[in-house]
């Protein structure tokens, strides 16, 4: 499979703090790659390096074969970036923001008009075209950011925590939009600390902790490696223990042989959060 993003021993240090620590990544062309990790794991720094905003301390990063440090202009032409915060000009309208991005990417006047119309329609923002960004709801702002970053038809879209702070309904609409982009052939690199987001969207998930990639695979594979069924047991009313099993039969037989001080047993499907906790000893989302 063709590799679209490759990093080799990528390292970024800020003084004594190591944000990325010898990261080796391979993102396939056309996939939705999820970068899962707690706050401060190095997700945003990785995106900043891949999008030419931050210079790595050592190692290298390639986007479609172009080195982000040596050939930043070639990289810039093929990336679209949706940052975590609202990075649109809030004093301009949605349409003006889109036009601005198109101008920065050298789209001609007729192409700009055509593309703005198409994209607004694509994300259902046509009615909002002439509203100031500042007056939009959180979900609309995010959609406006996505269409602005798509103006120059990037080959890869970076989404940094795309659904943080959005309500459940808006989040699902955005997921559908991301799936649609994927179906249209865009490679998607998204960071998240929402387990369900990674499970719902990503073909492959890389788990990052303290700047290192600690596991990688399809969400199902990662769960299979751990055990698809989880048993939660409350021991002495204070400590919850987790055990993982390949199937329900194995889990049930374990539960039947539990000692009497083990109470409140839950048998459920394992999720990526279990994978993460087992790998790092920490909960996702915890600082």
């Amino acid at each position, binding site marked *: 499979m063709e590799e679209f993003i490759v990093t080799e021993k990528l390292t970024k240090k800020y003084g004594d703090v190591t944000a990325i620590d010898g990261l080796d990544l391979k993102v396939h062309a056309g996939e939705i790659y999820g970068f899962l990790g707690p706050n401060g794991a190095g997700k945003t720094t990785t995106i900043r390096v891949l*999008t*030419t*905003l*931050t*210079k790595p301390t050592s190692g290298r990063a390639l986007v479609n074969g172009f080195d*982000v*440090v040596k050939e*930043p*202009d070639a990289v*810039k*032409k093929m*990336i679209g*970036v949706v*940052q975590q*915060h*609202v*990075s*649109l*000009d*809030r*004093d*301009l309208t949605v349409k*003006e923001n889109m036009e*601005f*991005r198109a*101008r*920065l*990417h*050298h789209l001609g006047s007729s192409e700009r008009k055509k593309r703005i119309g198409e994209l607004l329609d694509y994300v259902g923002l046509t009615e909002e075209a002439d509203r100031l960004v500042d007056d939009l709801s959180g979900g609309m702002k995010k959609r406006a950011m996505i269409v602005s970053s798509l103006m120059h038809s990037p080959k890869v879209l970076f989404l940094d925590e795309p659904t943080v702070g959005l309500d459940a309904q808006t989040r699902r609409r955005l997921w559908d939009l991301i799936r649609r982009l994927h179906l249209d052939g865009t490679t998607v690199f998204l960071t998240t600390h929402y387990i369900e987001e990674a499970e719902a969207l990503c073909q492959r998930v890389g788990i990052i902790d303290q700047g290192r990639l600690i596991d990688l695979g399809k969400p199902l594979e990662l769960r299979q490696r751990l055990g698809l069924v989880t048993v939660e047991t409350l021991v002495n009313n204070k400590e919850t223990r987790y055990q993982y099993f390949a199937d329900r039969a194995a889990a049930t037989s374990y539960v039947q042989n539990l000692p009497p001080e083990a109470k409140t047993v839950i048998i459920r499907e394992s999720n990526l959060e279990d994978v993460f906790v087992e790998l790092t000893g920490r909960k996702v989302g915890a600082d």
Partner: protein
Amino acid sequence: MVTAFRDIYSVLWVDLRFLRRHWLRTLATSLVNPLLYLVAFGYGLGSGIRFDGYNYLAFVMPGIIALTAMSSSYGGAGLKLHVDRLFYKCFDEYLMSPISLFSLAVGKTLIGVVRGLISTVAILVVGVLISDALMVTPLFVLVLVISCFVFSFLGVLVGLVAKSHQDMGTFSTLVILPMTFLSGTFFSLSQLPEAVTAVLYMFPLTHSSLCLRAAALDQPFPWLSFAALLGFGVAFFAGCMWALKKASV
């Protein structure tokens, strides 16, 4: 070359949209200070004074135009850039796009120049109406445009390197404010001890007001100050390029 011009205009375009939306507010706020100076110093304090053979109003007008060029250009170029960079963080969008740092620096400077020229032209109209000694010569216009560039470069530079809102405030209080009052804007430098004058020559506004006054009142033109003003412009622009290089990969 064509690409560079197109990119410069693309950068300017955003700020022009902003200006178009807020033109009245922008113009009003940038005119309050110079009009206050004009009334307080030009009419209030200075009505009975003569300076270098001119009535005070004629003398102070070029100084007020110089400081208007400074504050409008500096603020126009620097403040929004600073807010976009540190608070809204939308400045990254420029750095992630395939435009050159040169185009970015010039584009961001031009909005300061545009705003500086709008404000100074408005004050100039008032000045020509109230003082018949004031002459708008080609040299005057040239110095005015160069001054707007110099202070816009300074605005972009400070907007790029300031690490916080406090930094911007500190620079305004420690550099811009003293410059406003001391750079020969309201009085003649010849009245000051030489040691003080030597310090004041380190301010670009001093050279700007010296040149503007000479051009407006048909005095011998201080070419050395003109060269110094150009030097400040080159230095500030080099600073902008350095800051942008530091901010990008």
